[in-house]
């Protein structure tokens, strides 16, 4: 579904992405893992067209995305830190996004209800806590039934209950055959969701394996431990 | 004494009795004006009916009244001077004179009066005449309620509307003059009055005034003439309650005063002129209760002016109030109202407590570098002006009104 071919990106002297190639398919839930500054977010932003790569190509459903914008209607994106116009209420933000995306399908408001956002519709964005803003971001990412979900550090600001509800939702979507791309550094969160792992370090893609392969290679049952082992190996 | 009085009465009766009326027109014996005039004796009235008369040059050399009924037209066919008067006591009224000849050599006119006195020219319309009414060497004559419309577009090919040369005791009232070179032209004219005339849209000056002493002009309107009004080389002129309006251009002045002394200017209105008054070599002029409104410069006063007193004038909405070319100040500003004054009046005597300096720094700069006008009202020039107000360096130190009024003078 998404094919990344030889993508490189340089920010000044920093090589953020170094000749990355990989592909992501339907029905997968991929964890994008790596230490801070390894290029996870940059890669996601490349896929979303927010960062334009210096070289290489990105295709979405077989179409090159450079210069294209319509493909983004098939992506639900939840940013690391969501910021919305201060003076708008939650209701207005939801309406605005609906208005902008003008979806053809019925809205998926599961998370809106699950997070009780529908009870806060009149609250102004600037009065909200970080966690509530994250909930809004999450709800927005899922709202338009996208084929691809890109979630950047999704559970960072969520309380445990919300986090749990959220994971259930991700699972459900994955079951529907959607592609879910998650970056996270709280590894334990992802254990029971993830089907594949992309590990990045200093802008390079170290490996892209299925969870089974990873377990086999490292001999660890739990994802946290296997990743820790990989990290340790790469530090040496 | 009694004898003398009865003599005069007898003479008067004799004259009025002998005054006959000679009628001219298609229905009368005299078909042409010329025939009428020829038939008339001194003191007669030649009464001309409506019609279009092509009489070439009509010469009047007897004391008659030439009177038009329903404004008969006298046509000069663009070749001739229409009426030439060579004797005193002539009256011309009620005609429409059109198309005089054009000749700068002979100054062809609608009506030319030479060496005569007690001539009255009234209620005529003059159109497309080279000179309009031309008086040379005249005296005690009256030019009243005539309308003069020149049609020439260039200065060289046009003459003056009312032209007086070497005359005295003239009375020029309620005429309107447009499209001529100078609206009213005075050269060597003494003791005369110019009253309630309107000179507008003339090619050069609305009023051109030279070597003429002891004259006054009152209640006239001078509007949008090529160069405004020019008063030069004259003494003891009274200029009262006139309107000088919309005289636009670099060399156009509401009024240009050059080598004038002992004049009085009071109650005049200067509106929307590029320069309302330009003064050069003017001495002992008293200017009171004039209004300067919306002019580019209200007053341009050259350093060679002396003892000009400006008192109780209103300066409102002018771009620059006063401009000058030097630092010498021998003139007095007192009790004027300046709308740009920003001082205060603590003792409530309606007179500002700090002096007002009407010359702004920027007007001095513009005087030297006219192009700088393009930067007028920019932030930087406002800053310069404010600095100059605190520390005068370029503007003349003594040019100030020590007692500026807080409210309009009238």
């Amino acid at each position, binding site marked *: 579904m998404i094919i990344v071919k030889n993508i490189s990106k340089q920010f000044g002297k920093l090589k953020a992405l170094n000749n990355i190639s990989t592909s992501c398919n339907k029905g997968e839930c991929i964890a994008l893992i790596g230490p801070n500054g390894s290029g996870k977010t940059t890669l996601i932003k490349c896929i979303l067209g927010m960062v334009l790569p210096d070289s290489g190509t990105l295709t979405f459903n077989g179409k090159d995305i450079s210069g294209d914008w319509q493909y983004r*209607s098939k992506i639900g994106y939840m940013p690391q830190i969501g910021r919305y116009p201060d003076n708008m209420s939650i209701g207005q933000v939801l309406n605005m996004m609906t208005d902008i995306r003008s979806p053809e399908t019925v809205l998926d408001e599961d998370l809106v209800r699950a997070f009780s956002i529908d009870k806060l519709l009149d609250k102004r964005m600037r009065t909200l806590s970080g966690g509530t803003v994250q909930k809004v971001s999450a709800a927005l990412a899922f709202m338009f039934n996208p084929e691809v979900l890109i979630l950047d550090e999704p559970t960072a600001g969520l309380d445990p209950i919300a986090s749990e509800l959220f994971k259930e939702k991700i699972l459900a979507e994955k079951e529907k055959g959607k592609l879910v791309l998650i970056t996270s550094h709280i590894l334990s969160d992802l254990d029971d969701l993830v089907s594949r792992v992309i590990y990045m370090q200093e802008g390079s893609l170290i490996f892209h394996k299925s969870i089974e392969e990873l377990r086999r290679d490292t001999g660890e049952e739990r994802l946290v431990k296997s990743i820790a082992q990989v990290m340790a190996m790469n530090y040496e | 004494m009694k004898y003398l009085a009865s003599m005069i009465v007898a003479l008067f009766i004799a004259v009025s009795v002998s005054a006959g009326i000679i009628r001219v027109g298609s229905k009368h014996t005299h078909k042409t004006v010329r025939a009428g005039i020829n038939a008339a004796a001194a003191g007669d009235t030649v009464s001309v009916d409506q019609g279009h008369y092509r009489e070439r040059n009509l010469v009047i050399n007897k004391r008659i009244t030439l009177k038009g009924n329903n404004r008969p037209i006298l046509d000069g066919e663009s070749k001739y001077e229409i009426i030439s008067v060579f004797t005193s006591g002539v009256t011309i009224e009620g005609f429409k004179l059109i198309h005089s000849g054009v000749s700068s050599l002979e100054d062809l006119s609608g009506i030319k009066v030479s060496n005569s006195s007690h001539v009255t020219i009234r209620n005529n319309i003059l159109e497309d005449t080279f000179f309009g009414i031309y008086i040379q060497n005249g005296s005690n004559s009256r030019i009243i309620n005539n309308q003069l419309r020149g049609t020439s577009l260039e200065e060289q090919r046009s003459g003056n509307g009312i032209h007086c040369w070497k005359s005295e005791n003239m009375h020029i009232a309620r005429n309107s003059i447009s499209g001529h070179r100078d609206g009213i032209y005075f050269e060597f004219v003494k003791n005369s009055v110019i009253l309630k005339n309107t000179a507008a849209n003339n090619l050069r000056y609305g009023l051109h005034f030279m070597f003429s002493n002891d004259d006054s002009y009152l209640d006239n309107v001078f509007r949008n003439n090529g160069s405004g009004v020019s008063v030069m080389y004259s003494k003891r002129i009274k200029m009262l309650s006139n309107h000088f309006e919309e005289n636009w251009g670099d060399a156009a002045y509401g009024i240009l005063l050059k080598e004038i002394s002992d004049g009085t200017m009071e109650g005049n209105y200067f509106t929307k002129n590029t320069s309302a008054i330009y003064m050069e070599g003017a001495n002992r002029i008293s200017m009171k209760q004039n209004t300067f409104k919306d002019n580019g410069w209200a007053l341009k006063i050259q350093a060679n002016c002396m003892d000009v007193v400006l008192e109780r004038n209103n300066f409102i909405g002018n771009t620059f109030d006063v401009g000058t070319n030097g630092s010498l100040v021998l003139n007095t500003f007192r009790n004027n109202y300046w*709308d740009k004054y920003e001082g205060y009046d603590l003792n409530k005597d309606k007179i500002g407590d700090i002096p007002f300096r009407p010359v702004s720094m920027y007007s001095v700069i513009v005087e030297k570098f006219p192009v700088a006008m393009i930067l007028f009202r920019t932030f930087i020039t406002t800053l310069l002006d404010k600095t100059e107000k605190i520390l005068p360096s370029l503007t003349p130190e003594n040019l100030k009104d020590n007692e500026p009024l807080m409210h309009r003078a009238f």
Partner: protein
Amino acid sequence: MNKIVKYVITDILRNRIIIIYTLFLLASALTVFSLEDNSSKGLLSLLNIILIVVPLVSIIFSTIYVYNSAEFIELLVSQPLRRKSIWLSIFTGLASSLALAFFIGAGIPILLYQANMIGLTMILSGTVLSVIFVAIALLSAVQTRDKAKGIGAAIMLWLYFSLLFDGLVLFLLFQFSDYPLEKPMIGISALNPIDLTRILILLQLDVSAMMGYTGAVFKDFFGTYPGLVFSCAVLLLWIALPIWLSTKKFKSKDL
């Protein structure tokens, strides 16, 4: 695109600063007109507001708005929207809100007290200046991610257009006073939108003084139909050029 414009405008119109700006304009306009005994003097005070305050507020407000909405812009970019339409929407939103603020704050009092050619020219000038300085602000804001640097650049730009440029011109004028500068000055004035609008207002406000020789050259140029077309074209160029450049930059910008 219209949708985004709508949201940008609603967002800005709820902003306290823009409301304060409108009230400030309204208060100063009403004060100058009611305090001065003649309204042409009021217009003069307003002229300074138009030439100094309007560009300042427009450029600073727009710059800060763009930086503060960085994340919101990111969010929009991640949505199925054309980058060009996002950027143009932000411009349109800012420009129309600031123009509206100017119109309510200064335009309406001017119409009440001075509904003539001068007033009309002033309203148009203020509106155009608002839009031009939004365009300039966007161009400078798209260059750097650093908010402090961006605001600094905005203040410098304002200082340049409202003060330094004229100082430079004045200096040139003194240096080359022996040459006929009238015509070059027309060209130079096109390099600064504030100067251009000021001259257009001057031709109405100080028409008598502008009829002097030098002024007449300007009047002959700007007062005629081709001159007016030239001025309008230049002013539009001052909007279009920065917007075109900043859109180009924004399209290839990493967020």
